[in-house]
């Protein structure tokens, strides 16, 4: 099917959301709480667009593109004055929530907000409660962290506020966080995150570490991989394959020698 975005027609597929099309066609719409790896959430509201359709009798609506399924001949406008004002207000509010987060400051400035009009949160961290970390943790199958509480006091938390027993130190939450507010520390062969310590698997040959023992064990169990799968790091594996492949090769000079 085809949908119209800002006047031009684009291909769209059944079951997609409007944001999927926007991303594929590289049309810039901010969306802090959306990521392809997880289901859309609709928390930040920045991806809102104006939609209409020739069959709707002139009715227009504002919807979050991350959650609105495409329909044939849908007409989408990504930047109207109202929507721009809305994004400005949302960023204004987010800046009050996280006044020190550089990513929010940068995005807010793009929409003309340098200082928030509201009272900034005291002792603020950089968490915008987009829920990406908890959703990706669920996607990984660990469910170690979750969103706790309701309303303004909502936060990303762990069971009973203690170090989460199901965390494997995979860093998916760290990597997906749009404001980089989840902190971790790798010191030697130990990774510290969420008040827990994990053993990083050292390469049996060169000692380089890539992932934690807990994460490796889960992958071996869940994906049916052999026990020694993670024993070597990628550099050493490359060396190995090079050497192995070289054994199969008949070298040029040998051939020349033979020829000669």
């Amino acid at each position, binding site marked *: 099917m085809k949908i119209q975005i800002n006047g031009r027609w684009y291909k769209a597929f059944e079951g997609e959301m409007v944001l999927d099309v926007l991303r594929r066609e590289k049309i810039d719409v901010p969306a802090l709480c959306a990521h392809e790896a997880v289901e859309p959430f609709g928390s930040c509201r920045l991806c809102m667009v104006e939609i209409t359709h020739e069959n709707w009798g002139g009715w227009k609506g504002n919807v*979050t593109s991350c959650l609105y*399924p495409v329909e044939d001949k849908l007409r989408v406008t990504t930047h109207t004055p109202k929507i721009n004002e809305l994004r400005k*207000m949302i960023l204004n509010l987010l800046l009050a929530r996280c006044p020190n987060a550089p990513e929010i400051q940068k995005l807010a400035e793009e929409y003309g907000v340098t200082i928030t009009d509201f*009272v900034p949160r005291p002792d603020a961290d950089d968490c915008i409660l987009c829920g990406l970390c908890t959703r990706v943790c669920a996607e990984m199958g660990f469910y170690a962290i979750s969103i706790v509480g*309701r309303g*303004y006091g*909502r936060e990303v938390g762990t069971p009973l506020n203690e170090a989460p027993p199901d965390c494997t130190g995979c860093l998916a939450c760290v990597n997906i966080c749009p404001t980089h507010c989840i902190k971790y520390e790798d010191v030697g062969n130990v990774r510290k995150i969420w008040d827990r310590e994990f053993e990083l698997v050292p390469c049996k040959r060169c000692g380089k570490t890539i992932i934690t023992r807990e994460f490796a064990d889960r992958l071996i169990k869940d994906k049916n991989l052999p026990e020694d799968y993670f024993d070597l790091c990628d550099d050493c594996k490359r060396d190995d394959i090079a050497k192995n492949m070289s054994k199969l090769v008949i070298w040029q000079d040998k051939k020349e020698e033979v020829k000669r």
Partner: protein
Amino acid sequence: MKIDSPQKLKEWRDRCLKKKAAAKNTIVVCFGPGCLASGCREVYAKFAEILEERKLKDITLKSVKKTGCHGLCEKGPLVVIEPEGIFYTRVKPAHVKDIIENTIINGEVIDKLLYKDPKTDKRIEKYHDIDFYKKQTRIALRNLGHIDPDDIEDYIAAGGYSAVVKVLTSLTPEEVIEEVSISGLRGRGGGGFPAGKKWATCRKVDADTHYVICNGDEGDPGAFMDRSIMEGDPHAVLEGMIICAYAVGARDAYIYVREEYPLAVQHLYKAIEDAMECGLLGENIMGTDFSLDIHVSRGGGAFVCGESSALMKSVAGDVGEPRAKYIHSVVKGLWDQPTVLNNVETFANVPEIINKGGEWFKSIGIETSTGTKAFSLVGKVENTGLIEVPMGITLREIIFDIGGGIKDGHKFKAVQTGGPSGGCLPETYLDESVDFDSLTKAGSMMGSGGMIVMDDRTCMVDVARYFLKFLVDESCGKDVPCREGLYQLHSLAVKVTEGKATEDDLALMEKLSEFIVIGSLCGLGKSGPNPFLSTVRYFRDEYLAHIRDKKCPGGVCRELITYEINDKCTGCLACIKPCPVDAISGEKKKIHVIDQALCTKCGACYAICQFDAIDIK
């Protein structure tokens, strides 16, 4: 006793009616929420005690019936002598002996227990003659105050389950939907969506399983209509749900009751148990092919779970957070199956619509809002209580005729409808018709039926602040406009009440409100700014008084008022002791003085002064 055919039901009904006719008098003791709070249990216990003692021939404890909310909660505990309708108010256990002696045995009416009309000062003997009751049309509340909710025979005698018989034996599901559509029944939970259309859309969805859910989450502060129906007439709800399930093709239905209503859950469980035992619920209802199980699901104490998508998540065992409803719940609802969600009151209307016909229902009310609506009329009126009125009645009739006017000689200021999502309407709207569309146009909404009347001692800015605080506490916090926006809006409202706000702040509040409405994910956020928007629309001068003059016209906002003693003071020393901070000083027979530096504006002195000597400025 298993009712496995419609004929058996008719025979049972005839037996129940015969039993009722045999009783000479029925003494109704109202066990509605208001009367429970004012002590009806002790009154009932006294009846039990005395009747056991006296061992009268015609009257035993069986003649005393505990019913649901009779209506006039302000004057409870209520005792009504049927069939005459003699209406006793503010009954205490000490009065019971006289009621039995004088009224039951000797047929005399006890004057001092009768209702006194505030306009004429005359005592009225029968409740049918009181304006409060005269002007009502009770359909959803038809059985409240007349049947014992725990006794299925009472419900059968009142015509219960006859609508189910009609539906299962003579109507197809499409015909049921047609009848409901003709009636024009719109959702009574606040959305006002045409019920027939909702049922039709759900039925059309091609899926293995359809669900029916009854929304008993009633979260609006001050609303107790659904509570009264669930507690006082649970079978009506069940009957409505059975009819809906038949129309839509559901095998399982759920009633979601908020955590704070344990009594409602109790009555619902009993009703379900009794209905199942008689074959009126469960497998092969009344011997037909249709089977339905109704389950009760408890809430966890969250207003946001009254929102349909959050409710369905809660029933499924997840955290109650709403979702974007671009795909409606009738298509993908509970466990992603097509689901009809309707309010308690909506279901309570359905059996009557089937029995008396959609045209009959349509003939009541007005064309665009048919039928009646239950309201919990509370606040500064003489007669607070539970009422049901035809759509199209004016606010003036409700507040001044049914409600009996404003209490204590004060003046009407505003009426708040629709709970925290609604708005306040001023005097100029008193002759406005009460219906879905008129109220919305005026900047408020029907909501689930809460109606709070306010007088000149109310500060509208404070009212806005109160409702915003409620919404901030109850917001699930998922999306930014609602979570952050309402929080900031509330902070600014507090600033206004403290006299610290500027006119720029007011402009910011208006702008912020506009975008909370556009950007929010669910109804809670979208209608969240309404308390502010409606009060600033009609009472802007009050906001400006707080901002420019640093004054509170309603005399409520503590930072902006002062308590002062005027020259009516007789020097009686009565106010000195109650003051918690010892701010009042004075000698006998000399005018007292309040030290403003210490005064906390608690109002204790104001409450106790008999001479009108304290002014709130």
